[in-house]
């Protein structure tokens, strides 16, 4: 049964990874505007510097 300890550890690592991803997404502003990106994805990429989103 001691394999349980490893499994629990793994499941937590995975879950913490998701939590970290969520926190990152909020931090980078993905929750601030849930409409514009859905339109922006349809535009042609022309200039690299403009398609790069900026974080702060």
């Amino acid at each position, binding site marked *: 049964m001691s394999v349980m300890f490893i499994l629990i550890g793994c499941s937590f690592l995975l*879950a913490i990874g998701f939590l970290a991803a969520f*926190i990152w997404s909020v931090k980078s502003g993905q929750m601030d*505007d849930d409409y*514009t990106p859905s339109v922006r994805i349809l535009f042609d990429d022309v200039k690299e510097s403009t398609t790069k989103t*900026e974080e702060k």
Partner: protein
Amino acid sequence: MENAPGATQKNPVLPSAYDYLLDEKVQNQLLQYKDAQLAKVTFFIPAMHCSSCIWLLEHLYKLNAGVLQAKVNFLKKELQVNYNPQATSLKDIVVLLSSIGYEPAISLNDLEKRVKKDDNRKLSYQIGVAGFCFGNIMLISFPEYFGLDSFTQGTFSKLFGYINLILSIPVFLFSAQDYFKAAWTGIKKRYISIDVPLALGILVMFARSTYEVVSGNGIGWFDTHAGLVFFLLIGKWFQQKTFDTLSFERDYKSYFPVAVTVIKENEELTVPVTALTIGDRIKIRNNELIPADAILLRGDARVDFSFVTGESEPVEKIIGEMIYAGGRQKGATIELEVCKKVSQSYLTQLWNNDAFAKDNQSSIQSFQQTVSKYFTIALLLLAFGSAAWWLVFNPSLAMNAFTAVLIIACPCALALSSPFALGTAMRMLGRNKFYIKSPAVVEQLAHMDTLVFDKTGTLTQPSASAIQFLGNELTEQQAQLIASAVSQSIHPLSQKIKTFLRIGQLLEVDTFTEQTGKGIEAKVNGYDIKLGSAVFVDVLTSTQNNLATRVYVKINGVVLGYFEMEQTYRKGLSTVIGELTEAHYNQYLLSGDNDKERAAMSAYFGNHNNMHFNQSPADKLHFIQTLQQQKQHVIMVGDGLNDAGALKAAHVGISVTENTSHFSPASDVIMDAAEFEKLPQFLQFSKRTLNVIHGSFVISLLYNLVGLSFAVQGNLSPLIAAVLMPVSSVSVIAFTTISTTYLAKKGGLQ
């Protein structure tokens, strides 16, 4: 390239109008960031309305090489521009934007206080953390609930207990912290809000669970604890729905321009509006706003006061006349002399009134506030009562019973019913273009018993007055004569007749006189033409139609007929007033105009005492306050800046607007004018929403009673709590959202 998809450029603005943007001070206030290579600025662009707008605005760098990046937030109608200050300037960007039809709204307000980035992010983090912990704690707790641990002789139960404890710490310290803060501020102010029993429940749950785990007595209530916080935060998030593009806090500052052209010693300077002093000579161009009370010195002033009064017909002013701030010049450039400071103007001093100083989150207590006071007292009595009981009969159970009561009675379902019912109602109303500032306003609406209407622009439809000619049909020649005569006059009625007749070729006018308020007299091609009121033209009229304005026509002494211009009331006005009367609302009319429409309006309002004419903005404000002193709960329905005081003072201010992206004064509700007919339904719906809240309160009390019956006996197991808490929360959420939506549909809302 297609310059402005979908948007037409109505009022081109001269580049020189933006000279103030070259000013260092103004720039510093507008820019979010600036160094030698990079400057960042965010504009609010009301004209943004479709995906092509996003495309165009985000490709701004193609039109101006100095722009490094442009990023749109469509829901907020914001455009963030990063540019190289060495390659271009703020002014160039603004001029470019307005030349392609997306004039940014830059107002005095932007300069005074920097728009703060609203901090919804903390709540997102709190929900994320609580959700993460809740899920994992549930998982860890399952073996215990199903007794699976007995197979392993309890090897895991201690470990699991500690894992739960560790997972609960962030929930307790971070996710739930706002409830402790709110409860504490409430207690300090001697005020018991729903946060008090919530905070108490969370605290006791965490403390007792920790004790149980550490002492090895059990596994505690960590799952209920995390679940409770998670659900509460979800409720908070649901309630936080806001209409981003609408601003409910606008005052004259967000409407007034940032700077104005001042003429000093034959030189034109751009001066910030706030720096205007008495005696300054200012220059106002077509479509610019008059920022302060001023005297007309030069030029033909035709001033559109539609934002102030709701009346869209421009008013003519003659030289030497005083023009109040807030009007927009239509036509040629004029020059004025400022005679009052911006903050002291007739209109703006309304904001110095006390009604604006205090934040009148009104005296009406919400249902939740009322209930939570009694709820908390009853809860504490019960907790101490059961503790006392067990101290006498079985002291070992006393602590158990005491904490169990506080845990199980933690009013989660109760705390969720209001946010979900009001939040749903707010969304339903928003879908019907009745935009509400905050969910609490829905509940306020349900308590109102009095409605006060502004007339012009609210009950009447601006700019929609119909015109027709009644009498003998005009011949081509007659029409030409009339058109030639009226073209000499800049009176709004003359302008209307001229547009109506649509004559291309005008004749030369030999003589022309105009009598203010009466009519005009002209000699054209040998014909004597007289146009004006019945008295002026010597006509005896039998039928009096007060709704319509008539201009009689007389050529060579023969009366041909009259032009009739009808003031149109909003569609469904009589039904609206009728339904509201049936629902027992007191209704009043306030108008800044004279009482020539008294008779017409009395058809709707009946009692003459309910109608007040010639009301100044301050009169309107005082009228509302007088009603409130008589313990009436007042809704003010208005539209212009002159209603701003009344809208603010009323318990609920509803501002009616033709276009929601345009200016509307500070209010609790912004209503699309097209939906005016539905006003009674909106009010009725708010009452029904309140019933839903009452209903869900009963449901949550029933759950509490079931839980309490276990708790007072001292045998509340963590499993019962873990089942009861989510079941009660979810069922209350389902009940409120479904029934509110159902009632909205039943009440005729979409």
